[in-house]
């Protein structure tokens, strides 16, 4: 479903961010991405939602290949995946439901289908009662839930989360993480970069550690997923 094959990513100013990264994430899997700041976690995620393209090597996401991809195809791919960030990235002058609806509107979803989908997903993230609140009226945890609702509203096959609990207190972190587990339990894969090692230790999910642009540890090493990519490489 997500496959990195000997991927290198080099930035003109900062140099090599990833080197020779190969990995495979299966459908419905939950994967933690850990490592120090600047290790390459965000670059790896950006390559997954094709905000960046590899300098060398190749990436496949749900059958879409990074090599030679057109901007229009990137847009199409993004409709099949959800992305959330540490800073939520909500539109401040729109209500929670308008923020979620926005994701449907920009991909030309029929107008009549929007309110139902928005209400369903806001209920799923536990914000049914806050639909008409503006981001500034919501707590950090609630804002992250709105961002997750926006990411989920198109029924993505994978949720990519870049430090989603980085700005949250302990209680909100637990809530957001539980929500991610629920989302994963319903069949959506989750790829989550985090610094919160407590979360990682307390769960049984696959963990990939990145350091200096390389994968230095993969808890799935030796299992089917890892062998699959080696076999393909």
């Amino acid at each position, binding site marked *: 479903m997500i496959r990195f094959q000997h991927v290198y990513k080099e930035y003109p100013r900062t140099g090599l961010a990833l080197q020779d990264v190969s990995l495979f994430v299966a459908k419905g899997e939950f994967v933690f991405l850990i490592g120090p700041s600047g290790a390459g976690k965000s670059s790896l995620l950006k390559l997954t*939602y094709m905000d960046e393209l590899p300098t060398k090597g190749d990436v496949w996401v749900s059958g879409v290949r990074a090599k030679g991809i057109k*901007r*229009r195809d990137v*847009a*199409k*791919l*993004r*409709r099949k995946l959800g*992305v959330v960030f540490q800073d939520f*990235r909500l*539109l401040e*002058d729109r209500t929670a439901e308008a923020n979620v609806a*926005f*994701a449907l*509107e*920009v*991909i*030309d979803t029929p107008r009549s289908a929007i309110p139902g989908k928005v209400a369903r997903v806001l209920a799923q993230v536990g914000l049914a009662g806050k639909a008409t609140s503006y981001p500034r009226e919501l707590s950090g945890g609630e804002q992250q839930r709105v961002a997750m609702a*926006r990411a989920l509203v*198109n029924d993505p096959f994978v949720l990519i989360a870049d430090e989603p609990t980085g700005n949250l207190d302990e209680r909100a972190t637990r809530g957001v993480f539980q929500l991610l587990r629920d989302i994963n339990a319903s069949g959506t894969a989750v790829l989550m970069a985090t610094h919160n090692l407590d979360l990682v230790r307390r769960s049984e999910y696959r963990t990939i550690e990145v350091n200096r642009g390389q994968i230095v540890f993969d808890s799935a090493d030796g299992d089917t997923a890892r062998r699959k990519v080696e076999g393909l490489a």
Partner: protein
Amino acid sequence: MRLALRETMIGFRRAPVLSMLSITTIAFSLFAFGLFSLVAVNIRKTLRDVESRVEIRAFLADGTPVEVVSAAMGDIGAFPEVIRVEYVSPDSALARAREELGEFKDVFESAFLPASIDVRLREGYRDPNTVRTVAERIKAFQFVDDVRFGEEWVDKLHRIRNVATAAGVILGLAFAAVAVIIIGATIRMAVMARSREISIMRLVGATDAFIRRPFLIEGFLKGLLGGGLALMLTWFASEVISRNFVQTEFFSRPLAVLGLVGGALIGVLGSSLSVGRHLRKV
């Protein structure tokens, strides 16, 4: 399209000062262009008025029979370049000379001036070469003694016209380029102000065409409003000049509409360039 319009309105509402500033900037850059165009239009009109007086005068030999003259007038009138042929008798020529040169009216005596045929040319045939060619053709008639058309004056007029046209085109393009750059810069500010929104749109799968649409509408509206404002300012300036200095002609209706459409198109072009540049970066 509904959504694009809504996003455009949100853009206007969210930053009303910035929007007004861009419309005013667009209006003033187009106003400068409008003033220049007003000058160009009036110079052109003046030159056209002067040019319409380009005339070939063929002096006739004494005693040329009237029927020969009228037959020749028919022939000359059939030249494609000719719009009007007029016979001027010696008496009419005298009356005209006395009228035009009032202070010398006593100097002129009867039968002092010969009869002539005055020939006026159509617009587009008043350049020196055509005038000369037609004059030579008329001179070929046996009863024509001499042909005059103010050769030096026609040459000079033609040169002035060419210089005015070239200067008009160059300055016009320069003004238009400045307007496009200024409009592009103001719209770029609007694009930057909404860069967060653009990045979110891209994140959730909006295509470039979709993202571009509200900005193009915004550019169109700003260009149209700025163009309208510029047109009003130019009209006001034209009125002030007409009342206090010299009678000026304002743009014809089609030209005014062309100005508005031009403003809107410049707005769309400026927007398209700005948002395109921004999209390539995100």
